[in-house]
């Protein structure tokens, strides 16, 4: 699909928000799903880049990306009106919590954008939503205004330059000590964060879902490039089609 860049804005150093419009099945999008975007139009770049859908309306979708290499650099240099070759929506997103469930959303760094859409989707249904977002530093903080509207928000930074100094696990822990409890936990962020979160809740009766990342080639399940191991390490799951969201007790983090 060719989508047109409707808007492109710099949110933080190296972090860009791009809104795309054009023919796309917006209505079917589930939080946690992603798109694969082609880089350039020649043959220099043969692999599309996977980027989560951060927000969606009836006629547009928004992505938020960090410039880390050539592909994301190229994306950050697009202009309003440019066309992007997009494949999607891909993957299985976050399952919705039951009505009135107590929900915790935990995001780290560039894991935050897909949780935005999740937060908006479940806001209506959930009883209360706690959100804990972790960043390296104030200059990396993104979407905090958006999340503060979605529920009770705690922001942490590694250096304490914004919100609470510390990591998200510590923040989750102090929330719990102060009486919060949750039935559903949704998380997206660096693998160590997800691993620690799963461990933190390991003895508790909590349903946890994590969104995973891996280098991808096809994005549709054909190449077996993007696998993770099942919890018992006996099988592989393809992150692009079986995920990117998995119940955390089904995968080896």
């Amino acid at each position, binding site marked *: 699909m060719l989508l047109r860049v409707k808007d492109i804005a710099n949110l933080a150093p190296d972090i860009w928000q791009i809104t795309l419009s054009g023919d796309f099945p917006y209505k079917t999008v589930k939080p946690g799903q992603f798109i694969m975007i*082609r880089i350039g139009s020649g*043959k*220099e*770049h*043969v*692999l*599309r880049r996977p980027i989560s859908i951060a927000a969606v309306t009836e006629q547009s979708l928004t992505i938020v990306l960090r410039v880390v290499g050539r*592909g994301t650099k190229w994306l950050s240099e697009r202009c309003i009106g440019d066309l992007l070759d997009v*494949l999607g929506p891909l993957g299985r997103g976050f399952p919705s919590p039951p009505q009135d469930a107590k929900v915790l959303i935990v995001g780290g760094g560039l894991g935050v954008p897909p949780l935005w859409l999740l937060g908006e989707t479940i806001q209506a249904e959930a009883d209360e939503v706690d959100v804990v977002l972790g960043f390296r530093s104030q200059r990396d903080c993104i979407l905090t205004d958006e999340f503060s509207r979605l529920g009770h928000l705690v922001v942490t930074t590694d250096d304490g330059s914004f919100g609470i100094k510390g990591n998200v696990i510590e923040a989750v822990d102090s929330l719990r000590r102060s009486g919060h409890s949750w039935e559903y936990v949704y998380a997206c962020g660096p693998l160590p964060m997800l691993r620690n979160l799963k461990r933190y809740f390991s003895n508790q009766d909590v349903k946890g879902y994590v969104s995973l990342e*891996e*280098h*991808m*080639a*096809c*994005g*549709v*399940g*054909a*190449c*077996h*490039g*993007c*696998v*993770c*191991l099942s919890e018992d390490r*006996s*099988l*592989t799951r393809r992150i692009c*089609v079986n995920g990117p969201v998995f119940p955390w007790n089904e995968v080896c983090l």
Partner: protein
Amino acid sequence: MSYPDLSVKIAGLHLRNPVIPASGCFGFGREYAQFYPLNQLGAVAVKATTLKPRIGNPTPRVTEVCGGMLNAIGLANPGVDYVVRYELPWLANQDVPIIVNVAGETKAEYVEVVRRVCASGLAAAIELNVSCPNVAAGGMTFGVDPNILQDLVAAVKEVCTVPLFVKLSPNVTDIRESALAAQAGGADGLTLINTLLGMQIDIYRRRPVLANKTGGLSGPAIKPIAVRMVYEVASVVDIPIIGMGGIFTGEDAVEFIMAGASAVMVGTANFTNPLACPQIIGEIEEFMRKQGIRSLVEIRGCIG
């Protein structure tokens, strides 16, 4: 002007057209059936199958490089019995010939897998993968020694009830030797090239990008090497050749045919563009129509 005839006959197979998704780049076909009906294709080459299930190498196992990609999937597959039982039957219903890519660590394993695939009656042809650079045992070791290769092909040929293609490794000094060895062993056709062994380093993390350190290079970057190898092999063997390596357009495919290939396979391009194969078919047809070529035989190997 009359409609050009894209059909090809190769090693006893009749294909609608010469375009075949390459092994490992098209799964078992299911994923791409959402983009177009698979019966538009000449055939489908499925992911390498081994005797036992394999989970493959640790990740990252794909990465992009200039004009191509590296992969170190490591022959991940659910094993021949699962493949024969749950994957091939679905594909066999799509009205497209199936080429089953077979890999192994020992001669006995190759023979056994081929036996089971042939017994299923679902394969139109076998493609012997003796050239996978991403596994410790087997794979490429068979592909780089002509004597071992000939012996392997002969052993497999004995149990193979469908046309047998041998997929050659480009990581050799003289690919003609491998080609002649495969032919001497009884191969009905050759497919080439598999990937070239490459490496990419993440200089910020000071380590190879792929967990496996090295991986196979595919895509446009290898096309000139692949065309040269098809040309070299075509000049020494009598059996038909399926060419591949960086084919992204109909013009690329025609290059391979003019170098001597009877058909072509398309790998990496499927990832860049899921509609690559049908588009390439359309472009070959357009080229033929514009150039007044009625059948691909007219141009096959025409650069002599």
